[in-house]
């Protein structure tokens, strides 16, 4: 990928202009920047791998692709300590409630990356009787990384995209992504639980 293409990021630019449009207080804006600088450079993933894509995620952690360069190497086994969830692998009917619960257990602010064809749409198993056709009906998704499995480089790009997103977000008030998330959760409630 040429470097210019890497920096050419229409999506993020659009997000930034949307956020800027509402204007912000200088003090809060500076604080936001500081906090987001910290947050975006230490995104901790939840170890969540159901199948093949997860193995590429393991490669990502090892010396060759070395995600420690970006501050993502602190893979947590507990959702309570993680910032984002890399959904690497197929999600099947039986796994759906467990997966949703893991998402609910992540501490705010939280993000989801749909990694690989299966997480995006069901992938090669889309026609199966026991596969969820994409995770976007179950949890709100921030970044999609296509591939079957995506190469580790693609995963790196995906997570970088997420950290850029985090950087331009407003931690305090204003228009931010967390509101979309609230809307999503209101539309997809877990039965028997009300926040």
């Amino acid at each position, binding site marked *: 990928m040429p470097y210019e293409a890497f920096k050419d990021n229409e999506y993020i630019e659009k997000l930034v202009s949307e956020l800027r449009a509402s204007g912000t207080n200088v003090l809060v804006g500076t604080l936001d920047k500081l906090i987001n600088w910290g947050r975006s450079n230490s995104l901790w993933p939840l170890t969540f791998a*159901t199948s093949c894509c*997860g193995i590429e995620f393991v490669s990502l952690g090892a010396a*060759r692709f070395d995600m420690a360069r970006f501050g993502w190497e602190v893979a947590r086994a507990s959702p309570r300590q993680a910032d984002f969830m890399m959904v690497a692998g197929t999600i099947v009917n039986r796994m759906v*409630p467990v997966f949703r619960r893991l998402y609910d257990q992540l501490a705010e602010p939280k993000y989801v990356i749909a990694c690989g064809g299966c997480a995006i749409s069901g992938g*090669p*198993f889309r*026609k199966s009787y026991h596969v969820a056709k994409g995770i976007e009906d*179950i949890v709100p998704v921030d970044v999609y990384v296509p591939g079957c*499995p995506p190469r580790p480089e693609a995963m790196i790009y995906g997570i970088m995209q997420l950290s850029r997103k985090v950087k331009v977000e407003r931690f305090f008030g204003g228009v931010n992504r967390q509101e979309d998330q609230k809307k999503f959760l209101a539309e997809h409630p877990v*039965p028997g639980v009300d926040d």
Partner: protein
Amino acid sequence: MANLQEKIAAKFPQATFEEADILQVNIPDAQLHDLAKTLRDDEDFAFDYLVTIVGMDWTDSLGCVYYLTSTRHSHHISIKTSTTDRDNPMLHSLADLWRIAVFYEREVYDFFGIIFIGNPDMRRLFLSIDWKGYPLRKDYDMNPELNPVSIENERQSDFTYTYVETPDGKVEKKEVPIFKEDDFVVNIGPQHPATHGVLRFRTALDAETIKKIDVYMGYIHRGVEKLCENLTYPQTLHFMDRLDYFSAHNYHHGLCLCIEKAAGIEAPRRAQVIRVMMDELSRIASHCLFIGTFCMDLGATTMLFYTLRVREQILDIMEKTCGARMTFNYDCIGGVMADLDPDFVKDVKALLAVLPDNIKEYNKVFTGNIIARNRMEGVGVLTREDAISYAVTGPSGRASNWACDVRKTDPYSIYPELDFEEVTRTEGDSMARFKVRIAEMEQSAKILEQLIDNIPEGDYCAKVPKVLKLPVGHWFQLVEGCRGAFGVYIESDGSTQPYRLKIAPPCLPLACVVDHITSGNKIADLITIGGSLDYIVPDMDR
């Protein structure tokens, strides 16, 4: 084979015989148990290894095909039995003869709804208890509204069922609790780093000692077998990459061999050599990852970086030839997809040059380490008899001194010409399973050394008809994956799509045996034992 047939015919006059690739005995359900018992216990037969049970729906009847092998005489047989009752199909269970049969029968029940009389644990294996219908039946209703994707927790039961036959021939359903009244049950998984994927153990504990484990599967059951029934033969191949993704080449090889056997195609010699080399490269890469993750489970994270170094080198070789790091889809019917990369020979030689030093390093860093030895030696012992009864094949079976390497017992492709040893050990503990894998890497390297300078010239793929139809019939093929014997069963009705494609994965028995080997051990040893068995969850769930 004729000899076997005569002996069976003498004892069971009702039996009829079919000559397929393996002798097949058709027997009514009433004699099934007697026949199976004779086949297992009679010295001349000694069929002590139940390879798989293939559930079948022939639309007019439902039934099973049992594949048996004798480890002593190394002969094979299959038994076919069926019932015409579609509403309430029942067959007799063989769970008292082979311990793995408990799980195989549960799988058949899950997919076809056949109830096995006498099976102590007649629950569904992969699908939830509220699942409507039996998916592998031909008349299964695929409507997603019947079985919707739901974020509501699935209903679970602490009870299982068993069906017993009363002396007057009636069948009674009995409810049996899975755990005892005062058992302390801890739930491990499905989201747990040490279960290597989404497997769940319901573990009954007595203080720190494990009393019983109820293995709960299906968290990655993707319904591959049903999907295959609506795809043409070449299209079915790509699923093989996604079962045990480390044995992608080996599984492809197995399915290709099975289809080629049925269609009467022979791959050219160059393709055969390439396939075997890819299989062995996969084996080295797979065992490398095993060592890395297993050591990481035991707390030695550094090993992962050492072993992935070699794995990355192998992935580079594969990427140059196959075009991908994983899910290669390289073997195809009649040969392989593309010719070798010009750098292949050079790269493999470079790998072979560094491999011995790497293995030495692994041994130096980990194998002799006192902490590792304390945690592995004598932990999780599996005897040879139990390994066979549970059908635990592959390196784990060989660590229990069962010479079960398909490359030696039922050689395929060019393996008979190659000089390599089958590694076995006698201890049967976690350390033995670990050491067998290290030694197997050396043997794979030996195979590669023999082949690397002798890759014959010629075509890499035979001429295969564009629209491939198999004749009516059924075929079974076993190959050696990285974790054990991988079987494929194809039944064809003469069309371009398989009527039934059954995958017999090596990892299902590996997970089923966990309860048996862990009971009496400490809970911390569960991690060691599970890691040393090295199961891949998408493979067992399919």
